[in-house]
């Protein structure tokens, strides 16, 4: 389910929506599974900072500007791009991360979407509007197909 301008994942969790909502939006619980140490709670309009606790990547900073907390359906934030090797924050527009929750007979269908990769550079923004008819996937696929045929 990958387009080239977004990453989308769906997972069925054997836990009620309320439980999953808590695991996502309580900053301490979020930190436990996402492997980050956060300095403060998530609040709409505020930025939560911290650092990665993933072994070997402790130097990576974490930063999330919360956009929506529509309990218990949607939690979203924007985060900046960091260089994986050095942890340096890059001067690029942040990508948007959305968690969509849906009840499925007492279980939770969670859909995660990270989007905005096509906008990483500001000069692209207006041009992408003209690109709507043909996605990245298609374009890159087209080119690779030609190249691989040789």
């Amino acid at each position, binding site marked *: 389910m990958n387009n080239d301008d977004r990453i989308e994942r769906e997972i069925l969790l054997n836990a009620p929506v309320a439980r999953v909502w808590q695991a996502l939006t309580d900053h301490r619980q979020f930190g436990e599974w996402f492997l980050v140490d956060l300095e403060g709670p998530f609040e709409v309009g505020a930025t939560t900072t911290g650092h990665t606790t993933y072994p070997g990547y402790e130097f990576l900073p974490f930063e999330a500007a919360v956009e929506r907390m529509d309990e218990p359906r949607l939690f979203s934030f924007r985060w900046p791009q960091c260089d994986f090797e050095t942890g340096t924050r*890059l001067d690029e527009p942040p990508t948007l991360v959305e968690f969509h929750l849906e009840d499925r007979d007492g279980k939770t269908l969670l859909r995660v979407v990270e989007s905005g990769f096509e906008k990483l550079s500001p000069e692209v923004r207006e041009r992408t509007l003209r690109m709507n008819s043909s996605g990245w996937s298609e374009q890159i696929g087209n080119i690779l197909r*030609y190249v691989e045929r040789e």
Partner: protein
Amino acid sequence: MTATPHRAAALFAALGDETRLRVLLRLAQHGPASIAGLSTDADVSRQAVTKHLRVLSRAGLVSGRRHGREHLWRCRPAGLTEAQRYLARVAEQWDGALSRLKDFVEA
């Protein structure tokens, strides 16, 4: 080699333009070409082609080489696979995080 976000940004920016995509597709389809040839095919000025080639070249998607009296440009598919690999790497990190979330809420 996986692209860093910065490299990926340059790649996506380079691809985010119709003329550049046309130029790139032309090079991928019909092989190396000169600026004059590309200008005729893409129906844009040589100046514009030169500018677009510079952006594509900076992103590692094309490379130019002197060939006799001509300067020929060719497509570098490695640049494209790099862009795809970057997204694959971000996707992998999400897979790891979600499987930890599953363990966490189902415990």
